[in-house]
């Protein structure tokens, strides 16, 4: 029985209206297999739902997949709500179809990392493991 004494808790899910969850499910499973406790919220979350869940679950990080094109609004709204709730210490990262030119702006807004299509799973695992509380 291998049970880590301090498993990393991480929320992953999809915000907004797109229903493409193949990628985020693979990420959820990769994080699980890396020994993390993955709170999987599924599709069609609002930023408010994500932030409420993250706080109740006391997660270290929130990983969001957005393929709808609404990433600029959705990521910023999540960061805004986290800050408003005094939970700005929870890291936000993401993936999906996010054009290169939008990435610097999102990072400046506080998104810690963005993983484009083609990212190797272990890159995401290493990133989450490296996050300090």
């Amino acid at each position, binding site marked *: *029985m*291998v*049970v*880590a*004494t*301090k*498993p990393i*808790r991480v929320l992953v899910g999809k915000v907004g209206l797109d229903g493409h969850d193949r990628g985020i499910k693979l990420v*959820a*499973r990769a*994080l*699980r*297999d*890396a*020994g*993390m*406790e*993955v*709170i*999987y*919220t*599924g599709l069609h*979350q*609002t930023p*408010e*739902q994500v932030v*409420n*869940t993250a*706080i*109740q*679950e*006391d997660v270290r990080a929130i990983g969001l997949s957005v393929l709808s094109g609404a990433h600029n609004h959705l990521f910023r709204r999540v960061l805004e709500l986290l800050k408003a*709730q*005094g*939970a700005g210490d929870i890291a936000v990262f993401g993936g999906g179809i996010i054009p290169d030119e939008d990435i610097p702006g999102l990072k400046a807004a506080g998104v810690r990392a963005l993983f484009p299509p083609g990212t190797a799973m272990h890159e995401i695992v290493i990133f989450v493991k490296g996050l300090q509380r």
Partner: protein
Amino acid sequence: MSGSSLRKKGDAVGDGALAEQVKAGDVRAISRLITLIELEDPEATAALKQLDGTRGHAAVIGITGYPGAGKSTLINQLATAYRRQGKKVGIVAVDTTSPLTGGAILGDRIRMQDQSCDTGVFIRSMATRGQRGGLARATRQTLEVLEAAGYNVILVETVGVGQNEVEVAFVVQTVVVVVAPGLGDEVQAMKAGLLEVAHIVVVNKGDRENADATVRDLADWVPLVIRTIALKGEGIAELITAIEARPCIR
């Protein structure tokens, strides 16, 4: 993990602010304290000691049963109904930790989305972290935290259980075992384990073929059988009435 560190005096603990915040219903404080309980941190022990005696009179209800029987969906409906009564609802949903990697997918919340923007509902997913019996080691103390924080109804969802995981019976007032129709042979096999601790057995997915037979078969063996269709909210009012009729002893 060592017991001795748990027994340390509250010196590393600061001013006890965490317990006060929990009593005031501060959601961040509640969720932090649950994390500390899971880590068996001395600060948790100190905070729990402070909370002791401040507990209200919450109804604590265990929802257990087979994987996929509809436990989470049923809890979502119960939470909605209790919210209509003006009660604050706390939910602890336990899922299994991988014995191979230590990781877990905690997915019960997906069925409880109706509650995710309601400030009167607190949901915490919890991995078993190697504990057997259907709950996590931290579950019991988490119930104490939620009670101290003012939640009136606390719903505990076990992992999807087999016959032998009956730990929930020791931490709740009312045990609801959820089954689905069509497991006829297994109903017999269940008699000696799980069903023994049931106060109420819910036959969920009650619109499926064989539901009548399942209800009939169970009725001989358990105190009370209620048929529900959790997805449609059918049978929920009856279930709540049955839970309320139970004596509250804890």
